[in-house]
Structures are given as C-alpha cells and as structure tokens.
C-alpha cells in the first residue's frame, strides 16, 4: 500500500511538472534569448543572456503601451470584481433568505447567465446604442455581467450556512435590512469573498477575447492584448513575446500566491461556527 502511494505521488508530481513547470521554464528561457536565438523556438539555453535588455525593450515598446495596458487591466479588474462581490452577495442573500414566487424566476436568470453563451454582435450593438462601446466602464459592466452568475451561486451557497438566528438577533437589536446585510452578514462572508475575488480577478485580468471585441482602440489596450505587439504576419519577435507573456502572467500569480493563505485561513475560520 505504501509503495503504491509513493508511486502515485511521484507520478502526479511528474505530471504536474510537465504540465505546469516545463512551459514556464520554456517561456523563461526564450525570454532571455536574443531575437535570432528565440526564432528557433527550441528548449536550449540562450547563447547570450539578454533578460534585462528584453525586459526594457518590452516595457518601452510602442511608447510604453504596456504600462497603459497594466493600468487599464487593473482598473477593469478592480472595479468589475468589486461590483461582482457587492451585487453577488446582495442577490445571493436575498435569494437564500427571502422566499417568494419570484425566487425561481430570478434563479432561472442566474443559471441562464451561466449556461447561455454570450453573443458578441448583439452585445456590441447594444453597447453602441447606450454609448458604452469602446469605453472602460462599458467593459467593466460586461465583465461584471459575465461573472455575476457564478458569484451569486457561490454567495448564495455560503449564506445558507449562516444561521438565520443571526439575522433575527440583529433585527431584534434594531438593525434595518441594509444594516443586517452590511454589519452582520457581509463580514461573515469573508472566506467566500476571497474565493470570488481570486477566481474572478484572475479570469478578468487574463481575459483576451472580450477586450478584443468590446474594447478596440489604442488607448483602451489591456495586458493580454499587448501580446499582439510582437507578433504579426511578417515579423515576430519571439523573445519579446515571451518576455511579454512573462510580465502579464506575473500579477495573477502574485494574487494567487498572496491569497492562497487567506483562502485556507478563511475556510478553517468558517468551518468552526462561533
């Protein structure tokens, strides 16, 4: 039995290494090569290490467009995730606590949001009609709409584990419905809020297609779209492309590493009800 566990463990580690670590090493190596070296796209060590030169070249490319992209992506991510947390928690709370005939209808819409794939052309038409096409706040609302269903489901599920007695105790203490939500329920949602923040911010930050469709324009560029800077039909600078990939991968990685502990801490705190 022990031997078998050992073998399974080693196999799993090896698979993880091949799937997750090898590509990362490949990116790292190619980001350190010169343009000619990297064109070969092989798994060799660079003849000459030009990591920092490449880094500077990528940041400076097209008049520092990467920095603008970072700003835009961060703005979109922070705002849309904030909206998802607030609205997701509110809708989840009402769906879980207040029973009415409308609940099924609302829940149907939430599920529809998860199941029905978004249609790009009508969405662009709608955005144009209400003057939100090619705007950052339009993009924020789109990301919020795409992510809200999942957030609502997570919050609704978690709120089910909070005893209703707490709401009632707060009501007896004289809290209004908004006060019950903001002063009693919301602070208790910390573990699931962290989960929503991590999952959604990584999704929004890494999103490539939606900004491509809904957010054209040089000043609207997001980090994933900067990858196009170094790849075109005739000229590809693979070393800079890989450096760019490295740079846009780092923020989500940091978010995950930072919040990973928080998730575990939050979950164990929620497991023992006070």
């Amino acid at each position, binding site marked *: 039995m022990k031997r078998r566990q050992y073998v399974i463990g080693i196999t799993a580690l090896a698979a993880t290494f091949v799937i997750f670590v090898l590509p990362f090493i490949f990116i790292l190596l190619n980001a350190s090569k010169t343009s000619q070296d990297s064109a070969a796209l092989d798994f060799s060590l660079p003849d000459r290490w030009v990591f920092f030169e490449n880094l500077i070249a990528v940041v400076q490319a097209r008049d520092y467009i990467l920095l603008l992209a970072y700003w835009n992506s961060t703005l979109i991510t922070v705002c849309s995730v904030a909206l998802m947390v607030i609205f997701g928690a509110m809708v989840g709370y009402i769906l879980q606590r207040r029973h009415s005939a409308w609940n099924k209808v609302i829940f149907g819409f939430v599920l529809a949001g998860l199941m029905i794939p978004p249609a790009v052309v009508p969405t662009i038409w709608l955005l144009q009609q209400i003057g939100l096409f090619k705007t950052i706040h339009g993009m924020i609302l789109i990301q919020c709409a795409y992510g809200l269903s999942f957030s609502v489901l997570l919050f609704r599920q978690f709120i089910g584990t909070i005893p209703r007695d707490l709401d*009632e*105790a707060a*009501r*007896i*203490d*004289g809290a209004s419905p908004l006060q019950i939500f903001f002063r009693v329920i919301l602070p208790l949602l910390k573990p699931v809020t962290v989960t929503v923040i991590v999952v959604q911010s990584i999704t929004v930050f890494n999103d490539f297609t939606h900004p491509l469709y809904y957010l054209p324009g040089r000043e609207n560029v997001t980090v994933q779209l900067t990858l196009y800077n170094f790849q075109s039909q005739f000229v590809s600078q693979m070393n800079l492309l890989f450096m760019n990939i490295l740079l846009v991968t780092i923020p989500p990685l940091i978010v995950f590493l930072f919040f990973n502990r928080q998730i575990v801490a939050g979950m164990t705190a929620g497991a023992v009800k*006070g």
Partner: protein
Amino acid sequence: MARVELHDIRKSFGKVEVIHGIDLTIEDGEFCVFVGPSGCGKSTLLRIISGLEEQTSGRIEIDGRDVGNLEPVERDIAMVFQSYALYPHLTVGENIGFGLSLARKPKAEIAEAVNRVAETLQLGHLLDRRPKELSGGQRQRVAIGRAIVRDPKVFLFDEPLSNLDAALRSQMRIELTDLHAQLGSTMIYVTHDQVEAMTMADKIVVLKDGAIEQVGTPMELYDKPATPFVAGFIGSPKMNLFDGDVAAQKGCEVYGIRPEHIRLTDDGDWHGRVRLVERLGADTIVHAEMETFGPMIIRTDGQSELREGREIRAAPMPEREFRFGKS
C-alpha cells in the same frame, strides 16, 4: 416593565393553522413559561410576541399599546435565542453593545452600559474575546447581556438552556431566576423541559397543538391538572395514566396517579411484579408490571431493597388520585 396581553392570536402557514386563537395575559414583572411538546406552537407564539413572525389575526398589547404591526425594536423587547445567535465577527463587548451602536448612542455611553452589564453577568474579563473563544455557559451569558443592556420592557427566551449540559443548565436556571428577581422585568420563557418550567415560573402556560391546555402556577398545575395531557406533562417521572377498563372501574374516562403518590405496603390492594429498578440515590424509581393496570411507575425512597422480579403490593395515597372526564 410591562403587561403583555394576547387577544385571539391566530397563525397560519399556508393553509395550515398552527396557533388556534390564544388569549393570554402576562402580568407586569411575571416570569411566564410556555411549555409543551415539540410542534405545539410555543416558539411560534414567542416569535409572534417578538415581532419576528406576524400573526394572521388577533391583537398583541404591551403595556396597553397595540404592538401587532410594529417592528421588533419598536416593541421594546429583547430576545435570547437557543443557538445564542452571537455575531461571530464581533467581540463580546461589541456583541453586547451592538443594539446601542445601531441606535447611534455615544461611544462613552455604550462603553458604560456594556461594562455595567458585564459586571452583572461576570463577563468583565471576557469583553475582548470572540464568541468562539467562549464556553457554552459564557456564550449564553453574553446572549443574556445583549438582551439586558437595552433595558427592555419584556424579555423573551427561546429555549435558552437546551444547548448546555445538565450541571450548567441547573446553574443557569438559578442565575436566570436571580436575574429576574434583580431586574423585576416581565419575562416570557419557552421550554420543552418541565423541570425548567416548574423551577423558574411564576406562571406556566401549557400548550398543545397550538392551543392553551392550562394556565396556572407550577403547584396549581401539579396539584390540579385540568386534563390528562397536563397531568402527564407536569411532574417527573410522569403520572401513571390509565384509560379503558381500569378507568371505567374508577368511574372516569382517564384515571391518573403520580409515581410519588403510590405507597408500597403489604396490605395494598394492587399487586404486581418489579420489572426494573432505577436507583437515583435519594429516590428509587420502580417500573412494575401490575395485574389490573399493566405497566406502572412507582417512586419510593432511596434505601429500598427492591429487586427485579420481586412481588409487590401497593396502594394509592388518599386524596391524591386523579379522575378525568373525557379529555
């Protein structure tokens, strides 16, 4: 302090009526206990008084004021829940002061009130702890503290002791009785435990199937139960109740005799055999199989030498038999 009056309170969930027209007056400063088996509507009735549940019809008055349509906070009541319902993210001090902070009282006033309550309930050293760092008894005290800090007219308790172990429960019973004596407020207490009802109440309301079965002082209910249900519910071990032929011989529908009102005596008319003996120290509970009656519980003194299988003869104490008409 306040007098609570209920007039023809009815409550339906969908088509099912669970409270069937309750009329009740709880006097100023009284400790009133609602008791009954689970599902009898006692908690629902308490929630209607608190305002957490709305009555389908009927009138509720506190201190002569119709409060039927008011929010809980406007009724000037406080409630202690079975699960304590402490806010897990707040400290003990913040839990107690939560209601006052919602009412936007000045910080100094809140702190003073919290300290005063903490003093009364011996919670002073725990004010900075979170609920999860407290024992069951301490949590219960915090829940009570949260209720008394607002100085309400009426206290409502929804089975507050049922999550505690036996020793702590009897200690908290005494503390609650002391608290009632100290505050002199009207208190309404829901329990399914007849011992709590008997030991703490000024007045007991026995409920069954959403209607009042009997109202009275603990000893009134013990000495003069109005129905076999009340007779069986009040007193421990419960009263021996017999219907059918046995009751017919005694000239009634249901015949009842409490275990402590049966004497084991050699010249007794009832005979049977001991099936099981429970020794509690001070008392001995004898489960016997009697010839005419069938199973019967008899309470006798702790020094009894009785053993399983022994033949016994018993007799009821005079004036202690109960005969009920149709229940």
